[in-house]
C-alpha cells in the first residue's frame, strides 16, 4: 500500500511559529532568524489523485488560512534555500495519536474507503544567519533535542521523516517463569533490579518464601503484579514503615519509634477531630464530605512528578486525567481542578542543566499545556493553583493535580458481589505506562528518560469525557456495585484492589488492545489512560452497554468476581497468575527505616527583638525591595498561565482565580456554586505550600502551610468549622535517615496543626524519591515540599469576599498575632541576606482569630480581605492596591524600629481586612480580646504609603506596583 505525505502550511501569520521563535530565543539560540512550522499527515492507502486532492482540501486544510501539498513516498529530495534547514518529527509507534484515528474515521465518513491508516508529525523549517551546512546542522540538532521534539515520544530527523505505524506483531502469549526459589540475596536483588521492581531484600525474601511454600516459581505476571501492588506508589510503604528515630548526636529521640506515619500522625489527627461531616477519609479513591441535604463533595490531589520530568505535556496531561478518574471512582461528577506546579528557575542556562534534563522553560510550558489541554477539553474548570520556582526542582519538577467532585448523597457503593462481572470501560490497552508505579518509586538518572520511555502516557480527554457521561448515568441507574479507576499499576491494581475482599477470575485475552503483540504481563500492568473497572451484576450489563454505545465508550467484560479469596488471571485459558489475596495485599514485610531528626533550630523564635534591621535594609531601599518582591517569580502575577485555563465552564465559579476592578488581582481561594445545587451553599478551594520553610524547619513548615491553606479559605469567607484538608508530601529518598527525619517532623507538624485548626485529613498522597542522580555523580534532591489543599464551605456564596480594595475611606485592619520573621522569607531571597532566624512560629490564637473573622464576614463588615504570606505585610497590601487600583495609607507602629521586619517579615495567622467606617465598632467588638489593629485606610489617590510613627517608609504609585508585579499587564496587547 502507498503512503502519502501531506504538508499543511499556514498563511502569512502563524501564531504557532511566532511562539516557537520566542521559545528559541529565550533558550539563547540567537542564530535563528525565522522558524516556520507545518503540520504533517501521513496517510496509507489506495487512493486516486483526485481523492488525494479532495482529502487535502476537505479534511486537512482550512481553506482560508492554509494551503496543502501532498506527495507519494518516497518523495524526491527538494533543495531548500541555503540558509534553511528542515527538521521533521513524528510520534514513536505505540504513542497515543488521537488525531490519526480521527483522520481515518473522517475519511471513511467522507467516502474515501481506501484510507487504511494515518499518522501525524511536524515539520520545522529553520532559517539561520549562517549558510554553513555543518553549523546549521549542529544548531538544528541541538534545537530539535531541546525544543522541537522529545525523543521519549518522538523520532526526529534533519530532512524528511518516514512515518512509523505500530508493528503488526503476532499476538504474544509468552509467559516467563522466574526461578527465584534457589536464589541467594544477591540473586534476588538482581531480579528486582532487572525487572525494575524497586523491591528491597526483605520484600524479595517474602516473595521467595511464599513461592517456596507454594512449591513453584512465580510467573512474570505474578512478579510484576506483586512489585506493583507493593510499590511505594500503591502501598505507601514508607508512610507505613516502622521507624527507629534518633537525634543528630545519636541519642534516642522522643518518640524513639514510630509505627506508621499515616496511622500515628495523619489518621490520628482525623480520628481525634472526629468531624461528623466527614463521610469517608483515606479509604476510597477520594475523600468525601457532607455538603448539603442533597449532595456530598469529594476531593483528591495526586502528583505526577516523574512522568512530567521526562515528557512534560503527557505527564501533566495524564496527571490531570488520573485525578479526575479518582473522583469518578467515588461516583462523583468532577466540578473543579486545581494544579500546583514547581519548576526550576526559568532563566537557567542550558549549560547548567544536568545531563538528560529538559530545560525548566520547556518543562513549564509543556506542563502548563498539558494541564490546559486536559482540563479545558474535558470541561472542568481549573480554579485554583500555584506556581513556585526553586533550583531544586530543575531536574525534578513537581506537578500536583487536584480534582473536586460532587454527587447526590448516598449513591456511591463499594460492595462487589460474587458473580458480578469485571467490566473494563474506556480506552484500549497498549504498552503505555508500563511499570509507572515502580518507576515513580525510583530515583531518576540520566538514562531514566530512555529506559522509562514506555512509562510515558499521553492523555485523551475526550475519551474520559465519555467515561464521565456513562458512569454518572450508570450510577443514577444503580448499574454497578463497585467502581475504581485504572491508575498506576493498571488492571493489576484496579481489579486487584476490587477483588481483594472476595476474589476474581480474569481473562486477559478479552482485553481490547491498541495493537497486538502485548505479553500477558504487559496487558495486566499497562497504565493506558482513560479506563475504569466496574463490578456489574450480569443483569445490568445490557443497560450499561446501551449507555456505552451512546457515548462512544468501549465496554469489555474481562471476567468474574468470585468468592474464592484468590486472584486468578488467565491468558487464553492458561492460568498466568494465581495468588492468595492475603499474600498479595497483606504479605509484604513492614519496611524498617531509620530516621535522624534535624538539628533543633539554634535561633530561638523570639530573637526578633534582638539586633537591628538597619544592617538588613535601609529605609531608602524599602521601595525597591517591595518592587523586587512583587516581581519575584514566586509572587509575581500568574495571569499569563491562569488565562490559559478555562475557569468559567460549568458556570459555578463565584470567586475566580483573578479578582478586582481590572480582573488581575490574585485571589486567595476559589469559591464555587455548583450548577444543580439548590440553596446558597458554596465550596471553597485553597492551598498552602512553602518549600523555603521546608528547607529550614520541616515541623514549622507543616504548621505554616496548614495555616496558609486555612487562612486563604478564611479570606474568601469559608466557615472555619467546616474545612477539610489533604496532604501531599514530595520528599527525597526516604532510605537516607536525614531525609526520613525531616519527613517525620513534617508529619508531626501536620498532626499538631490539623488538631489546632480542627481540619481533618480526608486523603493524602506521598511522592518520595524525588531526587536526581546527575552524570556528575551528585544527588539533586528537591526541597522538602508539603502541599496542603483545603476544601472548605461557605454558607452563602453571596457572602464571599474578594481581595481587591473596594472603596476610598474604608479602614484597614491587621487581624492576627503578628510575629514577623526573616527565616525562610522571600525578603531574604531578594535581598540576598541569609537569615539565621527560624521560620514563622505556629500561631496559638489563629483559630480564634479566624472564627471572629468569619463572623465579621457573615455580618457583612468585611469589604475585602487578603492574607499575609510570602513577602509579608507590604506585599499583601500592594496586592490589595493592585486589585482595586486604589491607594492605601498605613501607619504601622507595631514593631518599633523594625521597619524592614514589619514590612517584609513573614508570619502565620494574619490577615488584612477592609472595613467601612460605619462597621468599625461592630468589627472591633467581634475581635474583643483577640489581636487586631487598625493600621490605616483606603485612599482614592492610587499610592501605597507605609509609615511608621508618621515617618514614611515607603511610598509607591499603584501603577509601579502593577508594572513590577505583572510586566505584561492585561490591557496591553502581547507582543507578536
Amino acid at each position: 500500500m502507498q503512503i502519502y505525505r501531506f504538508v499543511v502550511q499556514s498563511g502569512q501569520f502563524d501564531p504557532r511559529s511566532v511562539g516557537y521563535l520566542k521559545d528559541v530565543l529565550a533558550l539563547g539560540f540567537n542564530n535563528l532568524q525565522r522558524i516556520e512550522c507545518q503540520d504533517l499527515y501521513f496517510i496509507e492507502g489506495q487512493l486516486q489523485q483526485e481523492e488525494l486532492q479532495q482529502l487535502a482540501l476537505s479534511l486537512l486544510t482550512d481553506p482560508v488560512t492554509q494551503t496543502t501539498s501532498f506527495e507519494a513516498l518516497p518523495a524526491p529530495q527538494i533543495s531548500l534555500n541555503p540558509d534553511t534547514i528542515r527538521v521533521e518529527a513524528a510520534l514513536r509507534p505505540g504513542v497515543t495519536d488521537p488525531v490519526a484515528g480521527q483522520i481515518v474515521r473522517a475519511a471513511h465518513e467522507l467516502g474515501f474507503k481506501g484510507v487504511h491508516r494515518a499518522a501525524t508529525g511536524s515539520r520545522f523549517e529553520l532559517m539561520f544567519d549562517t549558510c554553513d551546512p555543518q553549523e546549521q546542522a549542529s544548531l538544528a540538532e541541538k534545537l530539535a533535542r531541546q525544543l522541537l521534539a522529545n525523543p521519549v515520544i518522538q523520532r526526529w530527523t534533519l530532512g524528511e521523516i518516514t512515518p512509523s505505524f505500530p508493528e503488526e506483531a503476532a499476538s504474544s502469549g509468552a509467559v516467563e517463569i522466574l526461578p527465584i526459589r534457589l536464589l541467594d540475596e544477591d540473586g534476588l536483588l538482581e531480579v528486582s533490579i532487572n525487572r525494575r521492581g524497586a523491591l528491597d531484600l526483605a520484600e524479595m525474601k517474602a516473595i521467595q518464601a511464599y513461592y517456596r511454600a507454594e512449591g513453584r516459581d512465580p510467573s512474570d505476571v505474578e512478579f510484576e503484579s506483586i512489585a506493583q501492588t507493593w510499590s511505594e506508589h500503591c502501598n505507601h510503604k514508607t508512610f507505613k514503615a516502622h521507624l527507629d528515630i534518633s537525634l543528630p548526636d545519636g541519642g534516642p529521640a522522643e518518640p524513639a519509634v514510630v509505627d506508621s506515619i499515616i496511622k500515628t500522625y495523619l489518621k490520628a489527627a482525623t480520628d481525634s477531630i472526629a468531624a461528623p461531616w466527614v463521610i469517608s477519609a483515606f479509604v476510597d479513591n477520594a475523600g468525601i464530605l457532607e455538603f448539603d441535604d442533597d449532595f456530598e463533595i469529594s476531593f483528591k490531589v495526586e502528583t505526577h512528578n516523574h512522568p512530567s520530568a521526562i515528557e512534560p505535556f503527557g505527564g501533566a496531561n495524564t496527571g490531570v486525567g488520573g485525578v479526575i478518574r479518582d473522583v469518578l471512582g467515588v461516583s462523583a461528577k468532577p466540578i473543579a481542578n486545581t494544579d500546583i506546579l514547581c519548576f526550576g528557575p526559568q532563566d537557567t542556562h542550558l549549560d547548567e542543566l544536568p545531563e538528560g534534563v529538559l530545560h525548566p522553560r520547556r518543562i513549564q510550558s509543556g506542563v502548563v499545556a498539558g494541564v490546559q489541554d486536559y482540563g479545558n477539553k474535558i470541561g472542568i474548570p481549573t480554579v485554583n493553583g500555584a506556581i513556585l520556582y526553586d533550583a531544586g526542582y530543575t531536574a525534578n519538577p513537581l506537578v500536583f493535580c487536584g480534582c473536586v467532585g460532587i454527587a447526590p448523597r448516598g449513591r456511591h457503593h463499594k460492595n462487589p458481589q460474587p458473580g458480578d462481572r469485571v467490566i473494563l470501560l474506556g480506552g484500549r490497552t497498549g504498552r503505555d505506562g508500563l511499570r509507572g508505579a515502580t518507576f515513580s518509586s525510583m530515583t531518576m538518572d540520566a538514562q531514566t528518560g530512555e529506559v522509562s520511555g514506555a512509562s510515558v502516557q499521553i492523555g485523551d480527554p475526550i475519551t474520559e469525557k465519555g467515561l464521565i457521561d456513562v458512569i454518572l448515568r450508570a450510577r443514577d441507574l444503580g448499574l454497578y456495585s463497585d467502581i475504581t479507576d485504572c491508575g498506576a499499576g493498571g488492571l493489576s491494581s484496579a481489579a486487584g484492589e476490587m477483588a481483594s475482599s472476595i476474589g476474581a477470575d480474569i481473562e486477559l485475552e478479552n482485553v481490547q488492545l491498541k495493537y497486538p503483540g502485548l505479553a500477558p504481563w504487559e496487558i495486566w500492568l499497562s497504565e493506558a489512560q482513560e479506563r475504569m473497572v466496574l463490578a456489574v451484576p450480569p443483569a445490568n450489563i445490557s443497560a450499561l452497554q446501551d449507555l456505552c454505545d451512546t457515548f462512544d465508550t468501549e465496554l469489555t467484560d474481562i471476567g468474574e468476581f468470585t468468592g474464592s479469596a484468590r486472584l486468578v488471571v488467565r491468558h487464553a485459558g492458561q492460568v498466568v497468575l494465581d495468588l492468595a489475596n492475603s499474600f498479595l495485599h497483606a504479605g509484604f514485610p513492614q519496611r524498617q527505616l531509620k530516621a535522624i531528626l534535624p538539628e533543633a533550630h539554634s535561633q530561638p523564635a523570639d530573637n526578633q527583638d534582638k539586633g537591628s534591621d538597619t544592617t538588613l535594609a535601609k529605609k531608602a531601599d524599602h521601595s525597591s525591595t517591595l518592587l523586587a518582591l512583587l516581581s519575584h517569580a514566586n509572587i509575581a502575577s500568574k495571569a499569563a498561565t491562569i488565562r490559559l485555563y478555562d475557569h468559567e465552564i460549568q458556570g459555578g465559579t463565584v470567586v475566580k482565580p483573578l479578582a478586582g476592578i481590572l480582573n488581575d488581582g490574585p485571589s486567595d481561594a476559589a469559591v464555587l456554586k455548583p450548577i444543580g445545587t439548590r440553596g446558597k451553599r458554596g465550596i471553597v478551594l485553597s492551598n498552602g505550600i512553602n518549600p523555603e520553610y521546608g528547607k529550614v524547619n520541616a515541623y514549622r513548615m507543616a504548621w505554616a502551610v496548614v495555616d496558609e491553606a486555612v487562612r486563604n479559605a478564611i479570606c474568601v469567607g469559608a466557615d472555619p468549622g467546616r474545612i477539610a484538608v489533604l496532604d501531599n508530601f514530595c520528599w527525597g529518598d526516604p532510605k537516607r535517615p536525614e531525609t526520613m527525619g525531616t519527613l517525620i517532623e513534617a508529619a508531626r507538624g501536620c498532626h499538631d496543626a490539623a488538631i489546632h485548626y480542627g481540619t481533618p485529613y480526608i486523603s493524602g498522597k506521598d511522592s518520595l524519591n524525588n531526587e536526581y542522580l546527575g552524570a556528575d555523580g551528585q544527588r539533586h534532591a528537591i526541597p522538602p515540599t508539603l502541599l496542603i489543599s483545603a476544601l472548605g464551605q461557605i454558607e452563602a456564596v453571596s457572602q464571599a469576599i474578594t481581595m481587591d480594595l473596594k472603596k476610598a475611606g474604608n479602614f484597614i485592619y491587621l487581624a492576627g498575632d503578628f510575629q514577623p520573621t526573616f527565616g525562610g522569607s522571600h525578603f531574604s531571597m531578594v535581598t540576598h541576606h541569609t537569615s539565621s532566624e527560624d521560620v514563622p512560629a505556629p500561631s496559638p490564637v489563629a483559630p480564634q482569630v479566624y472564627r471572629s473573622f468569619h463572623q465579621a464576614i457573615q455580618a457583612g463588615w468585611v469589604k475585602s480581605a487578603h492574607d499575609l504570606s510570602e513577602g509579608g505585610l507590604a506585599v499583601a497590601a500592594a496586592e490589595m492596591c493592585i486589585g482595586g487600583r486604589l491607594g492605601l495609607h498605613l501607619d504601622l507602629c507595631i514593631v518599633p524600629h523594625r521597619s524592614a521586619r514589619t514590612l517584609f517579615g513573614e508570619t502565620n495567622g494574619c490577615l488584612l481586612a477592609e472595613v467601612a467606617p460605619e462597621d468599625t465598632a461592630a468589627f472591633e467588638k467581634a475581635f474583643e480580646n483577640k489581636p487586631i489593629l487598625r493600621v490605616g485606610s483606603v485612599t482614592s489617590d492610587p499610592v501605597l504609603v507605609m509609615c511608621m510613627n508618621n515617618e514614611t517608609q515607603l511610598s509607591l504609585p499603584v501603577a509601579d506596583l502593577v508594572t513590577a508585579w505583572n510586566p505584561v499587564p492585561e490591557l496591553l496587547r502581547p507582543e507578536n
Partner: protein
Amino acid sequence: MKPKALILQARGSNRDLDVMEALTLSGAEPIGVPLNHLRSRTTDWHAFQMLVIPGGFSYADALGAGKLLALDLNSYFADEINAFVASGKPVIGICNGFQALLKSGILPEGNDRQRASTLTFNTQGHFECRWVTLAPLSQTCIWTKGLNDNITCPVAHGEGNFQVSDLTLINTLSSLDQIALTYTHPDGSPANGEYPANPNGSVLDIAGICNPQGNVLGLMPHPENHIHPTQHPQWSRDVSGQTGLGLFENGIKYAAGL
C-alpha cells in the same frame, strides 16, 4: 407551552449543561440528545422548536476546531438541519457550535471556497479565558434584535479568530446585517482590534454572525455562563453587567411565536 430545544451533544461537547441551565432559566425546555441517538434512533426533529449546538471540544479539535463535527452535520443530518433552518426556527451555535456551523457552511450561508470565512487560531497563539463585552448589532438576527444593552460574558477558546479569504465577504455580511455581535471595550466603544477587548484578533471585532434570514446565530463567547449575578467577575464590587439571558429569551420568544 415552553419551546423545546434540541441540545446536540457531540463527542466532546462540554458546555451542554451550561446552556441547558440558561435555556431553562429563560423559559425553554432543553433536551439533550447525544449525537449517536440522533443517528441511531428516530428523532422527530419536528418536535423541537429550537436547535442548540453547545460549546466544547468535539473530537478534541482534531484537524481544526469544529471541523469534524461539521463533517458529521453534513454527512448525517444535512436534510434535517436544512429543513430546520429553512423553516425559520431559531438555531444557535456557541463556541465549538459556532465553529461547526461555520465549517459546515450553514453559516454565513452561501459559503463557497472562493469567499470563505473561518474561525482560526487566536492571534496571541493560545487558548484564553476572560470576560468580554459584546455589542448586539444585528436587527435581522432574531437572537440579537432589540437588545439594547451590551452583554458581558466570558470567552474560552483558542480558535475564535474570525477571518475571511476575501474582504468583500465582510461587505456582504455587513450589508445583509449578518454581523450579529462585536467585541467592544468595557465602556461600549469599539474594540478596534485592540487586545484584550477583542480577545482573539477577529476581523472587525466580529464575535458572532447570523445567516441572512436571521434565525441562525453563531458566536464564540459564552452568554450561557452569565446568567446568575454571582458569575460576573466583579459582582463583589456591586458591578452586575448585562447577562446573557436576554439573548436566549429572544430566541425562545421567537420560537414560541412560530
